[in-house]
Protein backbone atom coordinates (compact mmCIF):
# COMPACT_ATOMS: atom_id res chain seq x y z
CA UNK A 1 0.00 0.00 0.00
CA UNK A 2 2.74 2.40 1.06
CA UNK A 3 4.83 1.38 -1.90
CA UNK A 4 1.89 1.90 -4.14
CA UNK A 5 1.33 5.40 -2.84
CA UNK A 6 5.04 6.24 -3.22
CA UNK A 7 4.78 5.06 -6.78
CA UNK A 8 1.94 7.44 -7.41
CA UNK A 9 3.88 10.36 -5.91
CA UNK A 10 6.91 9.55 -7.98
CA UNK A 11 4.77 9.43 -11.06
CA UNK A 12 3.28 12.75 -10.08
CA UNK A 13 6.66 14.42 -9.68
CA UNK A 14 7.72 13.01 -12.97
CA UNK A 15 4.80 14.62 -14.74
CA UNK A 16 5.93 17.00 -17.45
CA UNK A 17 4.59 18.55 -20.55
CA UNK A 18 6.77 16.33 -22.64
CA UNK A 19 5.13 16.93 -25.99
CA UNK A 20 5.67 19.95 -28.13
CA UNK A 21 2.33 21.28 -29.16
CA UNK A 22 2.17 22.10 -32.83
CA UNK A 23 0.78 25.58 -32.30
CA UNK A 24 3.57 26.58 -29.94
CA UNK A 25 6.27 28.70 -31.46
CA UNK A 26 4.17 30.10 -34.26
CA UNK A 27 4.48 33.29 -32.22
CA UNK A 28 0.95 34.45 -32.99
CA UNK A 29 -1.69 34.66 -30.33
CA UNK A 30 -5.31 34.24 -31.30
CA UNK A 31 -6.74 37.73 -31.11
CA UNK A 32 -9.85 39.44 -32.32
CA UNK A 33 -9.16 40.96 -35.69
CA UNK A 34 -9.51 44.72 -35.75
CA UNK A 35 -11.19 45.48 -39.03
CA UNK A 36 -9.65 48.28 -41.03
CA UNK A 37 -11.89 50.89 -42.61
CA UNK A 38 -11.62 49.48 -46.13
CA UNK A 39 -12.42 45.90 -45.08
CA UNK A 40 -15.40 46.95 -42.98
CA UNK A 41 -16.72 49.05 -45.88
CA UNK A 42 -16.21 46.20 -48.36
CA UNK A 43 -18.03 43.67 -46.18
CA UNK A 44 -20.85 45.98 -45.05
CA UNK A 45 -24.23 44.53 -45.92
CA UNK A 46 -25.20 47.54 -48.05
CA UNK A 47 -22.01 47.15 -50.09
CA UNK A 48 -22.58 43.44 -50.61
CA UNK A 49 -26.28 43.95 -51.43
CA UNK A 50 -25.28 46.64 -53.91
CA UNK A 51 -22.62 44.38 -55.46
CA UNK A 52 -25.17 41.58 -55.84
CA UNK A 53 -27.68 43.88 -57.55
CA UNK A 54 -24.94 45.44 -59.72
CA UNK A 55 -23.76 42.00 -60.85
CA UNK A 56 -27.33 41.09 -61.85
CA UNK A 57 -27.84 44.36 -63.76
CA UNK A 58 -24.42 44.01 -65.38
CA UNK A 59 -25.21 40.47 -66.56
CA UNK A 60 -28.53 41.73 -67.88
CA UNK A 61 -26.83 44.59 -69.78
CA UNK A 62 -24.29 42.17 -71.26
CA UNK A 63 -26.99 39.64 -72.24
CA UNK A 64 -28.94 42.44 -73.96
CA UNK A 65 -25.84 43.66 -75.84
CA UNK A 66 -24.84 40.22 -77.17
CA UNK A 67 -27.89 40.04 -77.86
CA UNK A 68 -29.17 36.63 -76.73
CA UNK A 69 -32.45 37.45 -78.48
CA UNK A 70 -33.71 40.44 -80.44
CA UNK A 71 -36.67 40.44 -78.01
CA UNK A 72 -34.38 40.93 -74.99
CA UNK A 73 -33.60 44.59 -74.25
CA UNK A 74 -30.55 45.77 -72.32
CA UNK A 75 -30.82 46.93 -68.71
CA UNK A 76 -30.24 50.53 -69.83
CA UNK A 77 -33.02 50.43 -72.43
CA UNK A 78 -35.40 48.92 -69.87
CA UNK A 79 -34.59 51.66 -67.35
CA UNK A 80 -35.20 54.27 -70.06
CA UNK A 81 -38.58 52.70 -70.81
CA UNK A 82 -39.40 52.56 -67.10
CA UNK A 83 -38.62 56.26 -66.86
CA UNK A 84 -40.85 57.15 -69.81
CA UNK A 85 -43.87 55.06 -68.69
CA UNK A 86 -43.46 56.54 -65.19
CA UNK A 87 -43.28 60.06 -66.61
CA UNK A 88 -46.32 59.80 -68.88
CA UNK A 89 -48.44 58.28 -66.10
CA UNK A 90 -49.21 55.03 -67.93
CA UNK A 91 -47.43 52.97 -65.24
CA UNK A 92 -49.36 54.63 -62.41
CA UNK A 93 -52.60 54.10 -64.35
CA UNK A 94 -51.79 50.43 -64.90
CA UNK A 95 -50.96 49.93 -61.21
CA UNK A 96 -54.22 51.60 -60.17
CA UNK A 97 -56.11 48.94 -62.14
CA UNK A 98 -53.96 45.95 -61.11
CA UNK A 99 -54.03 46.93 -57.45
CA UNK A 100 -57.83 46.47 -57.25
CA UNK A 101 -57.99 42.65 -57.55
CA UNK A 102 -54.60 42.39 -55.87
CA UNK A 103 -55.48 44.39 -52.75
CA UNK A 104 -58.92 42.80 -52.50
CA UNK A 105 -57.50 39.30 -52.96
CA UNK A 106 -54.67 39.84 -50.51
CA UNK A 107 -56.91 41.29 -47.79
CA UNK A 108 -59.38 38.41 -48.18
CA UNK A 109 -56.56 35.84 -48.24
CA UNK A 110 -54.76 37.31 -45.23
CA UNK A 111 -57.84 37.70 -43.02
CA UNK A 112 -59.61 34.50 -44.03
CA UNK A 113 -56.39 32.53 -44.44
CA UNK A 114 -55.01 33.35 -40.98
CA UNK A 115 -58.48 32.82 -39.48
CA UNK A 116 -59.00 29.42 -41.06
CA UNK A 117 -55.41 28.34 -40.39
CA UNK A 118 -55.58 29.31 -36.72
CA UNK A 119 -58.95 27.54 -36.36
CA UNK A 120 -57.44 24.42 -37.92
CA UNK A 121 -54.49 24.62 -35.54
CA UNK A 122 -56.75 24.95 -32.51
CA UNK A 123 -59.13 22.12 -33.32
CA UNK A 124 -58.41 18.80 -35.01
CA UNK A 125 -62.01 18.61 -36.26
CA UNK A 126 -61.62 21.87 -38.18
CA UNK A 127 -58.30 20.58 -39.43
CA UNK A 128 -59.86 17.40 -40.81
CA UNK A 129 -62.67 19.43 -42.37
CA UNK A 130 -60.58 22.13 -44.04
CA UNK A 131 -57.12 20.72 -44.72
CA UNK A 132 -58.02 18.67 -47.86
CA UNK A 133 -59.36 21.81 -49.58
CA UNK A 134 -56.15 23.76 -49.08
CA UNK A 135 -53.78 20.90 -49.77
CA UNK A 136 -55.59 20.33 -53.08
CA UNK A 137 -55.73 24.09 -53.81
CA UNK A 138 -52.00 24.40 -53.16
CA UNK A 139 -51.16 21.92 -55.89
CA UNK A 140 -53.91 23.02 -58.31
CA UNK A 141 -52.71 23.86 -61.83
CA UNK A 142 -54.08 27.39 -61.78
CA UNK A 143 -53.72 28.17 -65.50
CA UNK A 144 -55.85 25.14 -66.33
CA UNK A 145 -58.53 26.21 -63.86
CA UNK A 146 -58.82 29.81 -65.10
CA UNK A 147 -61.29 28.99 -67.93
CA UNK A 148 -63.53 27.38 -65.33
CA UNK A 149 -63.37 30.49 -63.12
CA UNK A 150 -64.11 32.74 -66.10
CA UNK A 151 -67.03 30.49 -67.03
CA UNK A 152 -68.47 30.83 -63.54
CA UNK A 153 -67.62 34.44 -62.60
CA UNK A 154 -67.01 36.22 -65.92
CA UNK A 155 -63.99 38.26 -66.91
CA UNK A 156 -64.31 41.03 -64.34
CA UNK A 157 -62.84 41.89 -60.97
CA UNK A 158 -64.37 38.82 -59.24
CA UNK A 159 -62.48 36.29 -61.34
CA UNK A 160 -59.17 38.11 -60.94
CA UNK A 161 -59.65 38.43 -57.19
CA UNK A 162 -60.38 34.69 -57.00
CA UNK A 163 -57.17 33.93 -58.89
CA UNK A 164 -55.19 36.04 -56.39
CA UNK A 165 -56.90 34.19 -53.52
CA UNK A 166 -56.21 30.74 -54.99
CA UNK A 167 -52.54 31.67 -55.28
CA UNK A 168 -52.17 33.35 -51.90
CA UNK A 169 -54.51 31.59 -49.50
CA UNK A 170 -53.29 27.95 -49.29
CA UNK A 171 -49.77 28.83 -48.13
CA UNK A 172 -51.14 31.35 -45.62
CA UNK A 173 -53.64 28.80 -44.25
CA UNK A 174 -51.17 25.92 -44.06
CA UNK A 175 -48.45 28.05 -42.41
CA UNK A 176 -50.87 29.49 -39.84
CA UNK A 177 -52.12 25.98 -39.09
CA UNK A 178 -48.61 24.57 -38.59
CA UNK A 179 -47.59 27.59 -36.51
CA UNK A 180 -50.50 27.23 -34.10
CA UNK A 181 -50.16 23.46 -33.91
CA UNK A 182 -46.48 23.73 -32.95
CA UNK A 183 -46.90 26.11 -30.02
CA UNK A 184 -44.59 24.78 -27.27
CA UNK A 185 -46.71 22.59 -24.99
CA UNK A 186 -45.09 23.90 -21.84
CA UNK A 187 -46.07 27.49 -22.73
CA UNK A 188 -49.73 26.45 -23.00
CA UNK A 189 -49.47 24.53 -19.73
CA UNK A 190 -47.84 27.60 -18.19
CA UNK A 191 -50.82 29.72 -19.24
CA UNK A 192 -53.31 27.21 -17.88
CA UNK A 193 -51.47 26.74 -14.58
CA UNK A 194 -51.45 30.51 -14.05
CA UNK A 195 -55.24 30.53 -14.55
CA UNK A 196 -55.49 31.93 -18.08
CA UNK A 197 -58.86 31.16 -19.65
CA UNK A 198 -58.87 29.36 -23.01
CA UNK A 199 -59.46 32.72 -24.72
CA UNK A 200 -56.49 34.30 -22.92
CA UNK A 201 -54.29 31.31 -23.73
CA UNK A 202 -55.10 31.78 -27.42
CA UNK A 203 -54.65 35.56 -27.46
CA UNK A 204 -51.74 35.90 -25.06
CA UNK A 205 -49.75 32.73 -25.74
CA UNK A 206 -50.69 30.76 -28.86
CA UNK A 207 -50.98 33.69 -31.29
CA UNK A 208 -47.77 35.49 -30.22
CA UNK A 209 -45.89 32.18 -30.25
CA UNK A 210 -47.24 31.39 -33.73
CA UNK A 211 -46.76 34.87 -35.20
CA UNK A 212 -43.27 34.36 -36.72
CA UNK A 213 -44.44 31.40 -38.81
CA UNK A 214 -47.81 33.03 -39.57
CA UNK A 215 -45.91 36.04 -40.93
CA UNK A 216 -43.58 33.79 -42.93
CA UNK A 217 -46.75 32.37 -44.51
CA UNK A 218 -48.09 35.87 -45.15
CA UNK A 219 -44.89 36.88 -46.94
CA UNK A 220 -44.94 33.75 -49.12
CA UNK A 221 -48.67 34.13 -49.74
CA UNK A 222 -48.41 37.78 -50.75
CA UNK A 223 -45.56 37.01 -53.15
CA UNK A 224 -47.77 34.33 -54.75
CA UNK A 225 -50.70 36.76 -54.77
CA UNK A 226 -48.67 39.26 -56.83
CA UNK A 227 -47.88 36.51 -59.32
CA UNK A 228 -51.57 35.58 -59.33
CA UNK A 229 -52.64 39.17 -60.09
CA UNK A 230 -50.37 39.41 -63.12
CA UNK A 231 -51.32 35.90 -64.25
CA UNK A 232 -55.01 36.82 -64.07
CA UNK A 233 -54.43 39.91 -66.20
CA UNK A 234 -52.47 37.93 -68.76
CA UNK A 235 -54.87 34.99 -68.97
CA UNK A 236 -58.34 36.47 -68.37
CA UNK A 237 -58.48 39.95 -69.88
CA UNK A 238 -55.52 42.26 -70.36
CA UNK A 239 -55.93 45.13 -67.92
CA UNK A 240 -53.51 47.15 -65.80
CA UNK A 241 -49.92 45.93 -65.69
CA UNK A 242 -50.95 42.78 -67.60
CA UNK A 243 -52.25 45.00 -70.39
CA UNK A 244 -49.02 47.02 -70.39
CA UNK A 245 -47.04 43.79 -70.77
CA UNK A 246 -49.32 42.28 -73.45
CA UNK A 247 -49.65 45.49 -75.48
CA UNK A 248 -45.91 46.27 -75.41
CA UNK A 249 -45.15 42.74 -76.57
CA UNK A 250 -47.68 42.95 -79.40
CA UNK A 251 -46.04 46.11 -80.78
CA UNK A 252 -42.53 44.69 -80.14
CA UNK A 253 -41.75 47.42 -77.57
CA UNK A 254 -39.70 45.03 -75.47
CA UNK A 255 -38.04 47.61 -73.18
CA UNK A 256 -41.49 48.76 -71.99
CA UNK A 257 -42.66 45.17 -71.57
CA UNK A 258 -39.68 44.35 -69.34
CA UNK A 259 -40.03 47.66 -67.50
CA UNK A 260 -43.60 46.69 -66.59
CA UNK A 261 -42.49 43.23 -65.40
CA UNK A 262 -39.64 44.76 -63.40
CA UNK A 263 -41.93 47.34 -61.80
CA UNK A 264 -44.42 44.75 -60.48
CA UNK A 265 -41.52 42.65 -59.11
CA UNK A 266 -40.03 45.69 -57.38
CA UNK A 267 -43.43 46.56 -55.92
CA UNK A 268 -43.84 43.00 -54.63
CA UNK A 269 -40.43 43.01 -52.94
CA UNK A 270 -41.15 46.40 -51.39
CA UNK A 271 -44.54 45.28 -50.09
CA UNK A 272 -43.08 42.16 -48.48
CA UNK A 273 -40.31 44.21 -46.87
CA UNK A 274 -42.91 46.56 -45.39
CA UNK A 275 -44.80 43.51 -44.06
CA UNK A 276 -41.65 42.28 -42.26
CA UNK A 277 -41.11 45.72 -40.74
CA UNK A 278 -44.70 45.81 -39.51
CA UNK A 279 -44.26 42.36 -37.97
CA UNK A 280 -41.17 43.34 -36.00
CA UNK A 281 -42.72 46.66 -34.99
CA UNK A 282 -45.98 45.24 -33.66
CA UNK A 283 -45.38 41.62 -32.73
CA UNK A 284 -41.73 41.08 -31.95
CA UNK A 285 -40.57 43.48 -29.25
CA UNK A 286 -37.69 41.13 -28.35
CA UNK A 287 -36.23 41.50 -31.86
CA UNK A 288 -36.55 45.26 -31.67
CA UNK A 289 -34.68 45.24 -28.36
CA UNK A 290 -31.59 43.68 -29.98
CA UNK A 291 -31.39 45.75 -33.11
Amino acid at each position, binding site marked *: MAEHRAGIEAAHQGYRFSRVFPFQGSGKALREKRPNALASFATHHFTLNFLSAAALCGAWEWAGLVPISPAFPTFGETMGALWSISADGSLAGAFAVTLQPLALGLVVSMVLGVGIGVAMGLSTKTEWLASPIFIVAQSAPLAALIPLIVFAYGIGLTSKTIVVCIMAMPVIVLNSFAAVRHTPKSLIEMG*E*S*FLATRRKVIIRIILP*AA*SPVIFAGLRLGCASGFIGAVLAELLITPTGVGDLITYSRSIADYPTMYAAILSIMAFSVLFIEVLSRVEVMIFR*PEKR*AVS
Partner: protein
Amino acid sequence: MTALAHQFFTEPSPVTDCAVSVRNVGKVYAGVVTALENINVDFPRGQLTSLLGPSGCGKTTLLKIIAGLLPATSGEVLVNDLPVAGPGPERAFVFQDFALMPWANVLRNVAFGLEMRGIAKSEREEIARSHIAQVGLAGFEARYPHELSGGMRQRVGLARALAVNADVLLMDEPFSAVDEQIRRKFQEDLLTLIAREKRTFIFVTHSIEEAVYVSDRIVLLSARPGRIAQIIEPAIERGGDPDAIRRHPAYLDTVDAIWQSLKTYLE
Protein backbone atom coordinates in the same frame (compact mmCIF):
# COMPACT_ATOMS: atom_id res chain seq x y z
CA MET B 1 -31.43 -1.50 3.30
CA THR B 2 -28.45 -1.56 5.65
CA ALA B 3 -28.72 -1.28 9.41
CA LEU B 4 -26.42 1.73 9.30
CA ALA B 5 -28.73 3.69 7.06
CA HIS B 6 -31.60 3.15 9.44
CA GLN B 7 -29.97 5.41 12.01
CA PHE B 8 -30.10 8.34 9.66
CA PHE B 9 -33.57 8.35 8.28
CA THR B 10 -36.76 7.29 9.87
CA GLU B 11 -39.92 5.71 8.60
CA PRO B 12 -42.33 8.55 7.84
CA SER B 13 -44.19 10.09 10.69
CA PRO B 14 -47.96 10.31 10.13
CA VAL B 15 -48.94 13.54 8.40
CA THR B 16 -51.28 15.57 10.59
CA ASP B 17 -51.59 18.77 8.57
CA CYS B 18 -51.46 18.04 4.87
CA ALA B 19 -51.69 20.71 2.17
CA VAL B 20 -52.07 18.22 -0.66
CA SER B 21 -53.48 14.76 -0.42
CA VAL B 22 -53.36 12.22 -3.25
CA ARG B 23 -55.97 9.46 -2.96
CA ASN B 24 -55.88 6.25 -5.03
CA VAL B 25 -54.67 8.13 -8.10
CA GLY B 26 -54.03 6.12 -11.24
CA LYS B 27 -53.17 7.31 -14.74
CA VAL B 28 -53.44 5.29 -17.91
CA TYR B 29 -52.24 6.92 -21.15
CA ALA B 30 -54.18 6.17 -24.33
CA GLY B 31 -55.92 3.26 -22.61
CA VAL B 32 -52.80 1.08 -22.66
CA VAL B 33 -49.78 2.57 -20.88
CA THR B 34 -50.20 2.58 -17.10
CA ALA B 35 -48.10 5.49 -15.86
CA LEU B 36 -49.32 5.57 -12.25
CA GLU B 37 -51.09 2.93 -10.18
CA ASN B 38 -52.93 3.45 -6.92
CA ILE B 39 -50.91 6.36 -5.54
CA ASN B 40 -51.75 7.36 -1.96
CA VAL B 41 -49.60 10.06 -0.43
CA ASP B 42 -49.96 13.14 1.75
CA PHE B 43 -47.83 16.25 1.38
CA PRO B 44 -47.28 17.98 4.75
CA ARG B 45 -47.89 21.73 4.89
CA GLY B 46 -44.87 24.02 5.00
CA GLN B 47 -42.42 21.33 3.98
CA LEU B 48 -40.61 20.28 0.84
CA THR B 49 -41.51 16.84 -0.43
CA SER B 50 -39.61 15.35 -3.36
CA LEU B 51 -40.92 12.89 -5.88
CA LEU B 52 -37.98 10.73 -6.86
CA GLY B 53 -37.76 7.69 -9.06
CA PRO B 54 -36.28 6.15 -12.18
CA SER B 55 -37.02 7.93 -15.45
CA GLY B 56 -40.44 7.10 -16.85
CA CYS B 57 -41.87 6.32 -13.40
CA GLY B 58 -44.55 8.99 -13.76
CA LYS B 59 -43.25 11.56 -11.28
CA THR B 60 -43.88 14.46 -13.63
CA THR B 61 -47.29 12.96 -14.50
CA LEU B 62 -48.19 12.91 -10.80
CA LEU B 63 -47.06 16.52 -10.41
CA LYS B 64 -49.16 17.60 -13.41
CA ILE B 65 -52.18 15.77 -11.99
CA ILE B 66 -51.70 17.67 -8.71
CA ALA B 67 -51.37 20.89 -10.75
CA GLY B 68 -54.66 20.15 -12.50
CA LEU B 69 -52.96 20.17 -15.90
CA LEU B 70 -53.68 16.48 -16.50
CA PRO B 71 -56.83 14.59 -15.54
CA ALA B 72 -56.33 11.46 -13.44
CA THR B 73 -57.80 8.21 -14.77
CA SER B 74 -58.91 7.21 -11.28
CA GLY B 75 -58.78 8.59 -7.74
CA GLU B 76 -58.63 12.23 -6.66
CA VAL B 77 -56.31 14.94 -5.43
CA LEU B 78 -57.31 17.18 -2.50
CA VAL B 79 -55.67 20.58 -2.04
CA ASN B 80 -56.58 22.19 1.28
CA ASP B 81 -59.26 19.45 1.57
CA LEU B 82 -60.95 20.46 -1.71
CA PRO B 83 -60.84 18.17 -4.75
CA VAL B 84 -58.78 19.42 -7.71
CA ALA B 85 -60.81 20.04 -10.87
CA GLY B 86 -58.15 22.04 -12.71
CA PRO B 87 -55.43 24.61 -12.04
CA GLY B 88 -56.17 26.80 -9.02
CA PRO B 89 -54.93 29.99 -7.39
CA GLU B 90 -53.48 28.08 -4.43
CA ARG B 91 -50.98 26.29 -6.67
CA ALA B 92 -48.15 27.66 -8.83
CA PHE B 93 -45.91 25.75 -11.21
CA VAL B 94 -42.19 26.03 -12.03
CA PHE B 95 -41.34 24.41 -15.35
CA GLN B 96 -38.34 22.31 -16.32
CA ASP B 97 -37.84 24.28 -19.56
CA PHE B 98 -38.70 27.60 -17.80
CA ALA B 99 -41.71 28.21 -20.11
CA LEU B 100 -41.01 31.93 -20.45
CA MET B 101 -42.75 33.93 -23.15
CA PRO B 102 -39.91 34.97 -25.50
CA TRP B 103 -41.83 38.02 -26.71
CA ALA B 104 -42.32 39.42 -23.21
CA ASN B 105 -39.67 41.02 -21.02
CA VAL B 106 -38.77 39.82 -17.52
CA LEU B 107 -41.26 42.14 -15.85
CA ARG B 108 -44.19 40.99 -18.00
CA ASN B 109 -43.22 37.34 -17.64
CA VAL B 110 -43.10 37.59 -13.85
CA ALA B 111 -46.35 39.57 -13.76
CA PHE B 112 -48.16 37.10 -16.06
CA GLY B 113 -49.88 35.13 -13.28
CA LEU B 114 -51.01 38.35 -11.59
CA GLU B 115 -52.28 39.69 -14.91
CA MET B 116 -54.39 36.53 -15.41
CA ARG B 117 -55.81 37.08 -11.93
CA GLY B 118 -56.99 40.51 -13.07
CA ILE B 119 -54.70 42.63 -10.88
CA ALA B 120 -54.23 46.23 -12.07
CA LYS B 121 -51.09 47.01 -14.03
CA SER B 122 -49.35 49.31 -11.55
CA GLU B 123 -50.01 46.96 -8.64
CA ARG B 124 -48.90 43.81 -10.42
CA GLU B 125 -45.74 45.48 -11.69
CA GLU B 126 -44.88 46.58 -8.16
CA ILE B 127 -45.35 43.02 -6.85
CA ALA B 128 -43.38 41.61 -9.80
CA ARG B 129 -40.51 44.05 -9.22
CA SER B 130 -40.15 43.01 -5.60
CA HIS B 131 -40.03 39.33 -6.55
CA ILE B 132 -37.54 40.02 -9.35
CA ALA B 133 -35.33 41.71 -6.77
CA GLN B 134 -35.83 38.80 -4.37
CA VAL B 135 -34.46 36.27 -6.86
CA GLY B 136 -31.50 38.56 -7.56
CA LEU B 137 -32.51 39.92 -10.96
CA ALA B 138 -33.03 43.60 -10.08
CA GLY B 139 -32.02 45.69 -13.10
CA PHE B 140 -33.05 42.99 -15.59
CA GLU B 141 -36.78 43.90 -15.65
CA ALA B 142 -36.70 45.18 -19.23
CA ARG B 143 -34.57 42.34 -20.62
CA TYR B 144 -35.97 39.57 -22.79
CA PRO B 145 -35.51 35.84 -22.04
CA HIS B 146 -33.06 35.27 -24.90
CA GLU B 147 -30.73 37.85 -23.35
CA LEU B 148 -30.51 35.87 -20.08
CA SER B 149 -28.49 32.79 -19.13
CA GLY B 150 -30.27 29.51 -18.30
CA GLY B 151 -29.89 30.10 -14.58
CA MET B 152 -31.33 33.60 -14.83
CA ARG B 153 -34.27 32.32 -16.89
CA GLN B 154 -35.18 29.83 -14.19
CA ARG B 155 -34.96 32.64 -11.61
CA VAL B 156 -37.59 34.43 -13.71
CA GLY B 157 -39.71 31.24 -13.67
CA LEU B 158 -39.34 31.04 -9.91
CA ALA B 159 -40.20 34.73 -9.42
CA ARG B 160 -43.35 34.25 -11.54
CA ALA B 161 -44.45 31.33 -9.33
CA LEU B 162 -43.66 33.22 -6.11
CA ALA B 163 -45.43 36.39 -7.30
CA VAL B 164 -48.90 34.81 -7.29
CA ASN B 165 -48.50 33.99 -3.60
CA ALA B 166 -49.74 30.41 -3.87
CA ASP B 167 -49.70 28.05 -0.87
CA VAL B 168 -48.28 25.19 -2.87
CA LEU B 169 -45.32 25.46 -5.24
CA LEU B 170 -45.03 22.65 -7.76
CA MET B 171 -41.55 22.33 -9.23
CA ASP B 172 -40.91 20.02 -12.17
CA GLU B 173 -37.15 19.26 -12.30
CA PRO B 174 -36.56 23.00 -12.03
CA PHE B 175 -32.76 22.78 -11.93
CA SER B 176 -32.16 20.04 -14.47
CA ALA B 177 -31.67 22.46 -17.38
CA VAL B 178 -29.01 24.57 -15.64
CA ASP B 179 -25.34 23.72 -15.19
CA GLU B 180 -23.88 21.94 -12.15
CA GLN B 181 -22.46 25.03 -10.43
CA ILE B 182 -25.65 27.07 -10.83
CA ARG B 183 -27.63 24.02 -9.69
CA ARG B 184 -25.70 23.84 -6.40
CA LYS B 185 -26.29 27.54 -5.84
CA PHE B 186 -30.00 27.09 -6.60
CA GLN B 187 -30.25 24.20 -4.13
CA GLU B 188 -28.74 26.35 -1.39
CA ASP B 189 -31.03 29.25 -2.30
CA LEU B 190 -34.01 26.89 -2.21
CA LEU B 191 -33.22 25.96 1.41
CA THR B 192 -33.20 29.66 2.32
CA LEU B 193 -36.46 30.13 0.43
CA ILE B 194 -38.17 27.23 2.24
CA ALA B 195 -37.02 28.56 5.61
CA ARG B 196 -38.31 32.04 4.80
CA GLU B 197 -41.51 31.36 2.86
CA LYS B 198 -43.17 28.59 4.89
CA ARG B 199 -44.94 27.31 1.81
CA THR B 200 -45.54 23.75 0.71
CA PHE B 201 -43.15 22.61 -2.00
CA ILE B 202 -43.59 19.56 -4.18
CA PHE B 203 -40.39 18.96 -6.04
CA VAL B 204 -39.80 16.49 -8.86
CA THR B 205 -36.21 15.47 -9.48
CA HIS B 206 -34.22 12.59 -10.91
CA SER B 207 -31.14 13.47 -8.85
CA ILE B 208 -30.79 11.50 -5.61
CA GLU B 209 -28.30 14.01 -4.18
CA GLU B 210 -30.59 16.91 -4.96
CA ALA B 211 -33.60 15.18 -3.38
CA VAL B 212 -31.73 14.36 -0.16
CA TYR B 213 -30.16 17.81 -0.01
CA VAL B 214 -33.35 19.83 -0.25
CA SER B 215 -36.16 17.54 1.00
CA ASP B 216 -37.95 17.15 4.28
CA ARG B 217 -39.59 14.04 2.84
CA ILE B 218 -38.76 11.94 -0.17
CA VAL B 219 -41.44 9.91 -1.93
CA LEU B 220 -39.70 7.12 -3.81
CA LEU B 221 -41.60 5.83 -6.85
CA SER B 222 -41.00 2.48 -8.50
CA ALA B 223 -40.43 2.01 -12.24
CA ARG B 224 -43.46 2.01 -14.55
CA PRO B 225 -46.17 1.56 -13.58
CA GLY B 226 -45.30 4.11 -10.89
CA ARG B 227 -46.21 3.02 -7.40
CA ILE B 228 -45.03 4.37 -4.05
CA ALA B 229 -41.99 2.29 -3.16
CA GLN B 230 -40.97 4.06 0.04
CA ILE B 231 -41.29 7.33 1.93
CA ILE B 232 -38.14 8.61 3.58
CA GLU B 233 -37.52 11.49 5.97
CA PRO B 234 -33.81 12.33 5.95
CA ALA B 235 -32.71 13.16 9.52
CA ILE B 236 -30.68 16.18 8.48
CA GLU B 237 -30.56 19.49 10.35
CA ARG B 238 -30.83 22.27 7.75
CA GLY B 239 -30.42 25.30 10.00
CA GLY B 240 -26.70 25.98 9.70
CA ASP B 241 -24.02 25.93 7.04
CA PRO B 242 -25.44 24.70 3.71
CA ASP B 243 -22.12 23.09 2.80
CA ALA B 244 -22.10 21.06 6.01
CA ILE B 245 -25.13 19.11 4.76
CA ARG B 246 -23.18 17.60 1.87
CA ARG B 247 -20.60 16.25 4.36
CA HIS B 248 -23.15 15.06 6.92
CA PRO B 249 -23.11 11.26 7.42
CA ALA B 250 -26.92 11.17 7.33
CA TYR B 251 -26.83 12.88 3.91
CA LEU B 252 -24.27 10.48 2.51
CA ASP B 253 -25.94 7.36 3.91
CA THR B 254 -29.41 8.40 2.77
CA VAL B 255 -28.08 9.03 -0.74
CA ASP B 256 -26.44 5.62 -0.70
CA ALA B 257 -29.52 3.82 0.66
CA ILE B 258 -31.77 5.41 -2.01
CA TRP B 259 -29.28 4.49 -4.71
CA GLN B 260 -29.23 0.86 -3.51
CA SER B 261 -33.01 0.86 -3.59
CA LEU B 262 -33.35 2.51 -7.05
CA LYS B 263 -30.62 0.37 -8.58
CA THR B 264 -32.95 -2.61 -8.59
CA TYR B 265 -35.20 -0.84 -11.13
CA LEU B 266 -32.40 -0.12 -13.55
CA GLU B 267 -31.50 -3.70 -14.30
